[in-house]
């Protein structure tokens, strides 16, 4: 019983942390730069499919299956998502906040539809299965398997967190904040707002794609319906609840919202009669919405708000 709980806890945390990494990516874009990206699902999908195509074994009726090592898939996922973001960013980043939101939303839906219909590449509605899972040798021992994956995902989350913290608390992050506060003043001090904004957009999207790949490999199966707008909404809720502009807040928000999601899902499964289950699932989103509204009333800046002091060097002295 206790072992089952630990197994489930590890499984839960792996999923929550993979959302946490997506959330860290969104924090670079929204929390640090003020880029209103409502196309999170699209970049996560690009990462997941890139890695899946590269690492799955060759399949007759579908393009690819290149059977490459997992780590190559993950790095490529980040790279391809970043590349897509660079392409989209060059075109759209001149757009002001709300227009950028509409555009990225449309792009995410487009990506989802392409994934759904490009059957020869993505498997269409049937998705891609047999994505190699890290530590697959341990699969007979669920406890060990989940703990091994948890330590891997913890390590990766820590690495991404550290890399982003370095950036955000260094001169690069300082410029982003300055641009967010007053673009004309930042330009008068020699900062090219367009370039920095594009960098943040690309970096954030690359992180999202990377996280998408990790999720895909942990579950072992992906399908287009995993990448609907619901995931974008979840990640936004995570960031706002945890504290936009704060990486620790992003991770905390991811764990809390994913816990809320899992608990309400389980509770609905127990309470609601079987024939209404599918419809009751929509209540999960309602609960997150309520949580979001409650946080915005009680702590408008999230559980862990943004920190004013940026220069670590001085504080460390």
């Amino acid at each position, binding site marked *: 019983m206790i072992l089952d709980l630990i197994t489930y806890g590890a499984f839960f945390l792996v999923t929550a942390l993979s959302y946490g990494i997506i959330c860290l990516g969104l924090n670079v874009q929204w929390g640090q730069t003020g880029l209103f990206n409502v196309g999170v699902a699209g970049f996560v999908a690009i990462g997941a499919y890139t890695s899946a195509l590269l690492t799955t074994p060759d399949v007759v009726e579908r393009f690819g299956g290149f059977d490459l090592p997992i780590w190559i898939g993950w790095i490529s996922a980040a790279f391809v998502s970043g590349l897509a973001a660079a392409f989209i960013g060059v075109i759209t980043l001149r757009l002001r906040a709300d227009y950028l939101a509409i555009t990225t939303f449309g792009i995410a839906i487009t990506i989802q539809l392409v994934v759904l219909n490009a059957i020869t590449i993505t498997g269409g509605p049937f998705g891609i299965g047999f994505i190699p899972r890290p530590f697959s040798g341990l699969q007979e021992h669920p406890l060990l398997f989940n703990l091994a994956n948890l330590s891997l995902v913890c390590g990766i989350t820590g690495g991404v967190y550290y890399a982003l913290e*370095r*950036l955000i608390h*260094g001169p*690069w992050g300082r410029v982003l904040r300055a641009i967010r506060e007053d673009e*004309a003043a930042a330009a008068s001090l020699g900062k090219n707002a367009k370039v920095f904004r594009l960098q943040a957009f690309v970096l954030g999207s690359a992180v999202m794609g990377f996280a998408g790949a990790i999720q895909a490999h942990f579950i072992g199966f992906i399908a287009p319906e995993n990448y609907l707008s619901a995931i974008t909404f979840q990640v936004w809720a995570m960031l706002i609840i945890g504290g936009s502009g704060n990486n620790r807040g992003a991770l905390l928000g991811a764990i809390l919202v994913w816990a809320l999601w899992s608990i309400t899902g389980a509770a609905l499964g127990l309470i609601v009669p079987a024939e209404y289950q599918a419809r009751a699932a929509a209540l999960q989103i309602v609960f997150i919405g309520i949580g979001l509204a409650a946080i915005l009333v009680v702590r408008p800046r999230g559980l862990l708000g943004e920190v004013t002091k940026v*220069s670590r*060097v001085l504080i460390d002295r």
Partner: protein
Amino acid sequence: MLEVRSVLKRFGGATVVDNVSLRVAAGGIVGLIGPNGAGKTTLFNLIAGSIAPTSGKIFLEGVEINAERSHRRIERGLGRTFQIPRPFSEMTILDNMLTAAQAQSGERMFATWFMPGRVAREERINIDKAMALLEFLGLVRLAQEPARVLSGGQRKLLELGRVLMADPRIILLDEPGAGVNPTLLNTIIERIIEINRRGVTFFIIEHNMDLVARLCQQVYVMSAGRMLFNGTPDEVIDEPAVIETYLGAGTQ
């Protein structure tokens, strides 16, 4: 140092800056006065590159800079402050200063990750420089406070300090004395003179004639988009056309 040659700016049908030419010699402090709406700030925006002229040319140290955007002009040594100060309010005063330092390795992502030693070293140098400037401007006590706590006059000082972090050779100051209490105004004037002594050229928009007379060797007078007159402060005060359009009768 700075030359503006026949610059014209139209917004729709309105000609806001009408065929203006001027020169600011290296090492000097030159004033720009004129009634509200004369086009002074627009002229500054043209020189700083926030907006592009309809026609005419702008030269900095003999190089035409018309096509360069504002973030490139500061790299060339042309700094500016704003009429209404624009501090990054939610950032600390020190971070406001540090943002202005030029050519920071840490502004590149890969340098931050792979050359942390170099980034930290530069950051320490910049912090020392910023703290010295804040000391000079009397703001050092507030270094770790968010910029929003500053009074109007202190914001003017912070803007001056911020632009100095970029080591400009010429600074465009837009109304450094507006809304500043007399004590602080004296500080600002003394600091401008001191910075000028260290070799920085100033071009200053100001309404306070007392301040203009104390600071400037040469004054340009604009009215309704045109350059009306230029001369020493004494000549400007005695010029009938300037008295009529700007200073008003009753000013001796």
